[in-house]
């Protein structure tokens, strides 16, 4: 036989071997990153809404409490989306001619609710209850982010299971006094000691059993 390959093939062979390892490593990294990116979670993505409602304006600007619209957050698993009538309490009088608010007025006239696009959508097999979290000292901002700084609503956190577990494993790092639940700006000065005290005060159990959320 005579030579089949050129000397450069040796380099090629070695480069392709290390290249394959490199490629696999990159592939793994890409998959891990994609799974946690907003492509998979919708985190940080502003969704198209029928009316461009600004939490920034209503909460930070006008000082309306979360509870004014999301009325059932303390009693029910669902925080509640306000009916158009709630909007019309004010918008009968101000901006009552604004074309931007026409869908609200139409909904109010016809009684057909506005079809908002859901921003925080957990999978159907997850049963999340707002009332118990609020009762045990978890503030709105802990999960929904600084809603008072969002001109248009988006999902602030990933809502993936590892994110839920982060708090359920160490609630003392996230708990706050019940008085500060609706305070968007609240920051603890000494979360660790105060957190541990609140955990005891509020009898927080931070359950990690599967059936707490999946049933």
């Amino acid at each position, binding site marked *: *036989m005579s030579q*089949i390959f050129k000397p450069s*093939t040796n380099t090629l062979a070695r480069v392709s071997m290390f290249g394959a390892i490199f490629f696999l490593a990159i592939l793994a990294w890409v998959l891990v990153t994609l799974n946690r990116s907003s492509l998979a979670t919708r985190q940080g993505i502003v969704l198209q809404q029928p009316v461009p409602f600004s939490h920034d304006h209503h909460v930070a600007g006008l000082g309306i409490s979360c509870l004014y619209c999301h009325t059932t957050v303390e009693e029910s698993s669902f925080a509640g989306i306000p009916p158009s009538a709630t909007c019309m309490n004010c918008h009968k009088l101000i901006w009552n001619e604004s074309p931007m608010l026409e869908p609200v007025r139409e909904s109010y006239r016809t009684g057909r609710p506005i079809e908002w696009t859901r921003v925080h959508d957990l999978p159907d097999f997850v049963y999340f209850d707002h009332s118990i979290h609020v009762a045990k000292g978890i503030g709105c901002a802990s999960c929904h982010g600084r809603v008072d700084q969002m001109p248009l609503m988006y999902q602030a956190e990933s809502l993936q299971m590892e994110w839920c577990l982060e708090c359920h494993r160490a609630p003392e790092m996230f708990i706050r006094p019940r008085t500060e639940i609706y305070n968007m700006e609240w920051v603890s000065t000494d979360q660790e000691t105060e957190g541990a005290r609140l955990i005891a005060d509020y009898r927080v159990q931070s359950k990690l059993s*599967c059936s707490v959320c999946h049933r």
Partner: protein
Amino acid sequence: MSKAATKPEFALMAEFRSSRELLHAIEQSQAAGYTQLEAYTPYPIEEVWEALGQHKSKLPLIVLIGGIVGAFTGYLLQYWVSVINYPVNVGGRPLHSWVSFIPVTFETTILFAAGAAVLGMFALNRLPMPYHPVFNVPRFALASRDRYFLAIGSWDPKYDRRATEEFLLGLDPFEVNEVAS
């Protein structure tokens, strides 16, 4: 035999008809003071590599290390998963169910050790190397059939193009070839 070599040759290579002749040639070459020898045989012959002074391979150590790494990887993964990361009551069994962790630990040990053996073998043999000067000799194809080859590298301090060729021809080979680099 090639004559007009433009580049300095890689080695001189003698072809033998039997392993006995090859072993004899190795002895003679070593007696003559050649050190940069390499033999090529169609099948593994222990006497040949021993004659060339190779007694211990580094491979067993590499495999041992691979096995130990595999065992620790397997066991620690299971321990971390079951006891530290997400401890759950599974059928009333203890979190650290070490008996149940043995099969996986065993398998990762074997997996890592076997991987180390194969990768180590190729690394120690400097493979892959699809191109090598010895393939320039057309008759070298018979090294994978039934011929035995002895090469003396041109970097051998005692190497001399003519004298070495004479020496090899004196060993009663089938043929002596120059290995172009």
